[in-house]
């Protein structure tokens, strides 16, 4: 494995029934980059994410995360690898019976031997870092708005200072201002915490604004490049995506036309 890569996927095959979703897919994620993953509906963006984090078992192929093959790990090793990444699910997936603060403290209690007051302080620190007001600490997820749930979910993903953060459509369902704020937050945290971000998204604005490279799922494989490289690609879907009206609007608003 290349030392500059934190994730290496080789020859991934995913198939549900007779429907082959990934067929010999290769992907490298470099250390410290923000990688956006895009693709039409049903092209298996979320499946790819779930396969990398081990929630879905691939039919074939090799996945190395942080130098380890997550599928062959057992017990302690697997737990150790788990805490080196954090995942933000689409609607936050907060535990509904716990308050926001408890949600964030869960993984710290599980994986560290920190004393209670330190956990409490660190949880609140994370809450503040993702831009939530502190009175949200004692609220339950059902009392929060969608945007706040996402921020709380991000705080939980960051609880143990992971090296990689997986984001599943982080800006979906947010208003444009909230989405832009969330983009800035991700970029800011990525810089200050030195994260690698793997982000599945549909949001062209976030793609242009914060990603270093973009991986496009087409024809059961993946094409990776910067925005400018991909705009030159002559694959029809990629052309439609980046040079369609919304794509051009996103470029223009970020001064890239």
């Amino acid at each position, binding site marked *: 494995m290349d030392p500059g890569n934190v994730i290496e996927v080789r020859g991934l095959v995913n198939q549900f029934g007779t429907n082959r979703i990934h067929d010999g897919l290769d992907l490298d994620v470099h250390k410290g980059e923000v990688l956006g993953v895009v693709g039409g509906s049903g092209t298996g963006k979320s499946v790819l994410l779930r396969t990398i984090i081990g929630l879905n078992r691939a039919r074939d192929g090799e996945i190395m995360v942080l130098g380890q093959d997550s599928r062959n790990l057992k017990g302690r090793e697997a737990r*150790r690898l788990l805490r080196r990444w954090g995942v933000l699910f689409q609607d936050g997936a907060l535990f*509904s*019976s716990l308050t926001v603060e408890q949600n964030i403290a869960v993984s*710290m209690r599980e994986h*560290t*031997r*920190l*004393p209670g007051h*330190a956990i409490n*302080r*660190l949880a*609140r*620190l*994370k*809450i*503040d*870092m993702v831009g939530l007001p*502190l*009175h949200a*600490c*004692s609220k*339950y*997820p*059902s009392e929060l708005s969608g945007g706040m749930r996402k921020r709380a979910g991000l705080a939980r993903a*960051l609880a*143990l*200072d992971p090296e990689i953060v997986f984001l599943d459509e982080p800006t979906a369902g947010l208003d444009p201002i909230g989405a832009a704020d969330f983009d800035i937050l991700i970029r*800011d945290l990525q*810089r*200050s*915490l*030195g994260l690698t971000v793997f982000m599945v998204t549909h949001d062209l604005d976030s793609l242009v604004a914060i990603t270093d490279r973009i991986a496009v799922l087409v024809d059961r494989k993946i094409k990776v490049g910067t925005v400018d490289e991909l705009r030159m690609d002559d694959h029809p879907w990629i052309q439609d995506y980046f040079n369609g009206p919304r794509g051009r609007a996103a470029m223009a608003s970020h001064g890239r036309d």
Partner: protein
Amino acid sequence: MVEDDAWINAERTADALVVAVGGDWRVDAVANLLRAATATWTAEKAGDGVSTAVVRARDISSLDSGGAWLLVHLSRQLEERGFTTRIDGLGDSHRLLLDRVRKSADRIEITEVPPNRNALVSALATVGEAAVNACKRAHELLSFFGLTVILLGRVIVRPWRLELTATLKYIERTGLDALPIVGLLAFLIGVVVAFMGATQLKQFGAEIFTVNLVGVAVLRELGVLITSILIAGRSGSAFTAQIGTMKVNQEVDAMQTIGLDPVEILVLPRIIALMITLPLLTFYANMMGLAGGAFMSVVTLDISLTQFLDQLSGAIDFTTFAIGMVKAPVFAYVIALVGCFEGLKVTGSAESVGQRTTMSVVEGIFLVIVFDSIFAIAFSYLGI
């Protein structure tokens, strides 16, 4: 990842307290570092010409937000002890993180989170709240009852407004599908009553009266009660879960926006269906209960089937049967009402669906038994 890789030492020089830190200051190490730090300077205080503390951080090889918080936390502790503290020699990227964390850490310290209440007060408050809530619920349930009665009246006047397909579906689900379990349970209850009666009455040589016991107990009380309790657990809970899930998915809101009345669409078919099926199930349960009693009598008491039927016809009359049957529609109404009411009270989360479903079963069974005793008292006043 190795926890012992992080270290902290404090040393007093002529003009400053030098706290040397280094290694991997990551969240795993925080627990050990906290302990080490406390041990290092519990005795230290500013004075004797030393008023500055320098945290020498140049040996820190990696830092995450947990470690950065600890640095901030420690320098604050030092300041509380009277030292002017500064952090030296941190790399640029680590400095960036430290500043970010310090900003947040300052904010969480000044923001007051309301303290917990005194245990006694909160216990009392919980009891009071529960009592007030119980009254509120009773009131709400009663209003809901009124609402359904009005709507039922409307359906009787204009029967074409009733969702016939839905009603039939619920009749199948609550009635037909429940037949095996209701039948088996009633049969077993008949067996148990006969067995108990037989062992007790044998002592007086009055085994034949086992038949009377089975007949009266099953027809008057047990048949309808067992069926109702089973249906409260089986269908009352299902009503709550179904309607509750629809509430969570905002289907109920969607209905209201297109001018459909959720109570009319969701609640009425369920109430009507259950009021049809529960009496039928009760009749079926009565028969199965008697069959169970007959089976036990024939097997253990040397009473022939003809003898059993003969004795039974002397022991019971139509009133016994009617007393059991008349309760069935009432219990059905109570169960369906509570099930739907709790379903409509679901808010927001999936957890709420679970809570409400539990409540619906508990309240359903509770009310069935309460009503059963009201019936018993009423019948005894009426002398039947």
